[in-house]
C-alpha cells in the first residue's frame, strides 16, 4: 500500500467540472466508471422487460397484445445483448483495470477510448430513439433475420443503425486493448506474467476486431435493403435469406465469446485470491482463452442446423462445436483444481464465481446437446435454446459481471459494501435464476416452442414456476444493487487491498490516484504467488 496520501482520480480536476468534466475525460478509470453506470441502467431496463415477458407468458393477452409481445422480446434482446453484455465486462472492468493490471498509466489511445464511449452513448441514443419514433420498436427478434427485417413496418432501420454504431465502439475498444497489451506493459511484465483477466481481454479484443466488421456490413445491407431495395437477402430479388443468417452468425457466434471470455478472466482472478492458492495451470488457462477465440470463429453454422445446410457442413460444424468445448472444459478443471486444498474464504465475490462455474457448466454441457445434429432438430425451436442461452450468458457472463463488481467495488469506489446483504442478494439471484431458467430446460425438452405469444396450455404449470423464478431473481438484483448503492454513500472506507490480491491493481490506493502508479512498477514474479502470504 502506498504510504504517500494522494488524491484519488475522482478528485483530479481537468479543465471542466461536473458532468462535462467526466464526459470529456480521457482517464480510463473515469470512462470505465461511466460505462459501468450506463451498463447497469440498461441491464435494469432489460431485466424489467424480461419480467414483463415472463408475466405475459402466464397470462397471454391480459395486458400485452401479440404485437407488443414481439416488440418487447426484441427490445429485451437488443438492450441486453448490444447495450449490456457485449460491451459489458471489457468496457467497464477492462477499461478500469487493464492499465492498472499491467502497470500502465492509461490505455494506448486514451482519446480513442473516450471516442468509443461517445460512440456507445450515440448508439444507445439511436436505439432508444428507434423505440419512440417511426413504426415503433422493432418486432424482428434481436437477430434481425431477413427477409422479415426488410419488410417489417416497425422502426428496424434506426435500431439496426444504432447497433451498427455500437459495433464501431466495440471494434475500437478491442483495437485499443490489444495495442495496450502489446505496448504498455510495465518493465518485467512478460506475457506469461500477465494476470489472466488481461489474457482474456486480449483474446476478446481480437474477436472484437475480427468479427464485428462482418456484422457491420451485414446490418448495413439490411438498412439499404429497406431504403433502396438492395436485395442481397431478399429472395424476390435473387438474394438469399440464409446468407444473412450465415453472415449474422459469423459475427454473432464469436460475439458469444466476446461476452464470456472476459467473464472467465474475472473468475480466474477471483478463485485464486479467495482460495489463497496459486492458480492451477496458468499457461493452460491463458492459452485456452486464445484457443476459444480462434476455434470459436468457426462454429457459427451450429445456429443454423435447422435453417437449411448441407449434411457435410452440418457434420463439420457440429464437430468443431464439440472441439470448442474442450478449452472451456480445461478452464473449469483448472478453477476446480485451484480450489482443491486451498484455504477457501467464502466471500461474496467467490460465491458469484462459484455460481458461475456451476451455471456455466450446465450451460456448456446443454450446449453440446444442441450442438449434436439429432437432438438439435428436436430442441432448436424450443425453450431449451432459451434456457441454454441464458445459462451461458446470464449464468456465465452475468454472474461473472456481478462477481467482478463485488470483487473490484472497493477498488473502484473506495468503499466497502455489506457482506451480509451481498450474500443475501446472491442467494435470491442464484435460486431465482435456477427456478426461472431450469424450468425452461424442462419446458423445452417437452417441446414448448420459443417466441410464441401464447404457449399451448399443457405447458402452463412449469411456465408459472418459471415466472415465479423471475420474481425471485429480480428481488436478488434489487438487493444486490441497493446494497452497492448504499455502500457508495454509507460504506466504510476500503483499504488498498481488502482481499489480499496479488495483482498490481491492489498495490495502489482505493480508489487509485489519477496517474495510477506513483512509481512505475517493475514486475519480478507471476501474479498469483500466494505461498507464505497471509
Amino acid at each position, binding site marked *: 500500500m502506498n504510504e504517500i496520501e494522494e488524491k484519488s482520480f475522482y478528485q483530479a480536476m481537468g479543465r471542466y467540472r461536473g458532468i462535462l468534466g467526466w464526459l470529456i475525460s480521457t482517464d480510463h478509470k473515469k470512462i470505465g466508471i461511466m460505462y459501468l453506470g450506463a451498463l447497469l441502467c440498461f441491464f435494469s431496463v432489460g431485466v424489467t422487460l424480461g419480467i414483463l415477458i415472463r408475466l405475459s407468458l402466464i397470462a397471454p393477452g391480459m395486458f400485452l397484445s401479440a404485437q407488443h409481445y414481439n416488440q418487447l422480446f426484441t427490445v429485451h434482446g437488443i438492450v441486453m445483448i448490444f447495450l449490456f453484455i457485449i460491451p459489458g465486462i471489457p468496457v467497464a472492468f477492462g477499461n478500469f483495470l487493464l492499465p492498472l493490471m499491467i502497470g500502465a498509466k492509461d490505455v494506448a489511445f486514451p482519446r480513442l477510448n473516450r471516442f468509443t464511449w461517445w460512440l456507445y452513448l450515440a448508439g444507445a441514443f439511436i436505439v432508444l430513439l428507434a423505440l419512440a419514433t417511426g413504426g415503433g420498436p422493432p418486432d424482428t427478434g434481436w437477430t434481425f433475420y431477413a427477409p422479415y427485417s426488410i419488410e417489417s413496418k416497425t422502426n428496424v432501420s434506426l435500431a439496426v443503425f444504432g447497433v451498427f454504431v455500437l459495433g464501431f465502439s466495440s471494434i475500437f475498444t478491442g483495437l485499443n486493448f*490489444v495495442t495496450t497489451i502489446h505496448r504498455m506493459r510495465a518493465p518485467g511484465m512478460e506475457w506469461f506474467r500477465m494476470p489472466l483477466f488481461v489474457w482474456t481481454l486480449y483474446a476478446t479484443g481480437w474477436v472484437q476486431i475480427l468479427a464485428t466488421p462482418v456484422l457491420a456490413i451485414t446490418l448495413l445491407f439490411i438498412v439499404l435493403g429497406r431504403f433502396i431495395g438492395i*436485395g442481397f437477402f431478399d429472395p424476390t430479388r435473387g438474394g438469399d435469406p440464409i446468407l444473412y443468417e450465415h453472415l449474422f452468425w459469423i459475427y454473432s457466434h464469436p460475439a458469444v465469446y466476446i461476452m464470456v471470455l472476459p467473464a472467465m478472466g474475472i473468475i480466474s482472478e477471483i478463485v485464486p485470491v479467495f482460495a489463497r492458492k496459486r492458480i492451477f495451470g496458468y499457461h493452460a488457462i491463458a492459452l485456452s482463452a486464445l484457443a476459444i477465440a480462434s476455434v470459436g470463429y468457426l462454429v457459427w453454422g451450429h445456429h443454423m442446423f435447422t435453417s437449411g445446410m448441407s449434411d457435410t457442413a452440418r457434420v463439420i460444424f457440429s464437430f468443431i462445436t464439440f472441439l470448442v468445448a474442450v478449452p472451456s472444459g480445461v478452464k473449469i478443471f483448472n478453477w476446480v483444481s485451484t480450489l482443491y486444498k486451498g484455504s477457501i474464504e467464502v466471500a461474496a465475490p467467490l460465491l458469484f464465481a462459484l455460481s458461475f462455474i456451476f451455471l456455466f457448466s450446465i450451460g456448456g454441457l446443454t450446449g453440446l446437446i444442441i450442438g449434436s445434429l439429432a437432438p438439435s432438430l428436436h430442441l432448436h425451436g424450443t425453450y431449451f435454446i432459451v434456457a441454454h442461452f441464458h445459462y451461458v450468458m446470464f449464468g456465465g457472463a452475468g454472474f461473472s459481471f456481478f462477481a467482478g463488481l463485488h470483487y473490484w467495488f472497493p477498488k473502484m469506489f473506495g468503499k466497502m459494501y455489506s457482506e451480509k446483504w451481498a450474500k443475501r442478494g446472491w442467494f435470491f439471484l442464484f435460486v431465482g435464476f435456477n427456478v426461472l431458467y431450469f424450468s425452461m430446460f424442462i419446458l423445452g425438452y417437452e417441446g414448448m416452442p420459443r417466441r410464441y405469444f401464447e404457449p399451448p396450455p399443457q405447458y402452463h404449470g412449469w411456465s408459472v414456476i418459471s415466472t415465479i423464478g423471475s420474481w425471485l431473481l429480480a428481488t436478488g438484483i434489487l438487493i444486490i444493487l441497493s446494497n452497492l448503492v448504499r455502500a457508495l454513500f454509507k460504506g466504510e472506507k476500503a483499504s488498498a487491498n481488502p482481499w489480499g490480491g496479488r495483482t498490481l491493481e491492489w498495490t495502489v490506493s482505493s480508489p487509485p490516484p489519477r496517474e495510477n502508479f506513483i512509481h512505475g512498477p517493475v514486475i519480478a514474479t507471476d501474479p498469483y504467488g500466494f505461498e507464505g502470504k497471509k
Partner: protein
Amino acid sequence: MIEPLQAKGESGIDYTGKKIGMWIFLFTELLFFGGMFLLYSIFRAQYPSEFHISAREENLVLGTINTFALLTSSLFIALSIAAIRRGNKKQSLWLQGLTILCGIIFLVIKYFEWSEKIAKGIYPDSPVLLGMGSGETLFFGLYYMMTGIHGLHVLIGILVIAVMLHFTRQDTITSQNYVKLENTGLYWHFVDIVWIYLFPLFYLIT
C-alpha cells in the same frame, strides 16, 4: 515526479504502438470488405452467366484509367513519406497534393461511370434493373455497394490526406515525427488494394 512507464522514442511517441493500432484497424477494414467479397463470390457462383453478361456493361477504358490513377496516387503518398523522412518538407507537400489530385480524378471518373449507368436506368430498385432478372440485379447491386463504399473510403482518404497536408505545413508532421503521415499512407494503400480486387471482379472477368 512520475517516472516514465514505457520506453519511448526521442519524440515521446510510441511509434510502434501507433502503427500496430493502424494495422489492426486495417484488419477490421479487411473484414468489413470481406463480407462484401463473400457475397460477391456466392452470388457469382449462383449466377455465373448473368454476371458474365452484366460485366460487359462496364466501361473498361474508364476503369483502367481509374486503376492507373489510384496506383499512381499510392506511389505519390509513399514518396511523400520518403520525402518527409529526408526532411524535404516542400517535396512532401507537393507529393501529398498530387495524391489528393489522383484521388479526386478517381472520384470524378467514378461519378461519370455511375451517371452513365443511372442514365440508362440501371440503379438499385429501378424498374429497368428489376426487369433484367435476379442475377443482373445482384451484380449491379454489388457493383453500386462495393464501388460506393470503396468510393466513400477514397473520399475519407482524401480528407485525411488534406488534414495531413495541413499538419505538414504547420510542422506537426516532421522528419522526426511522421507516424501520422505513415499511418495515412497505410490506409491509402489499403484503399488502393481493395480497388485492385474490385477492378478485375467487375470489369475484367467477363
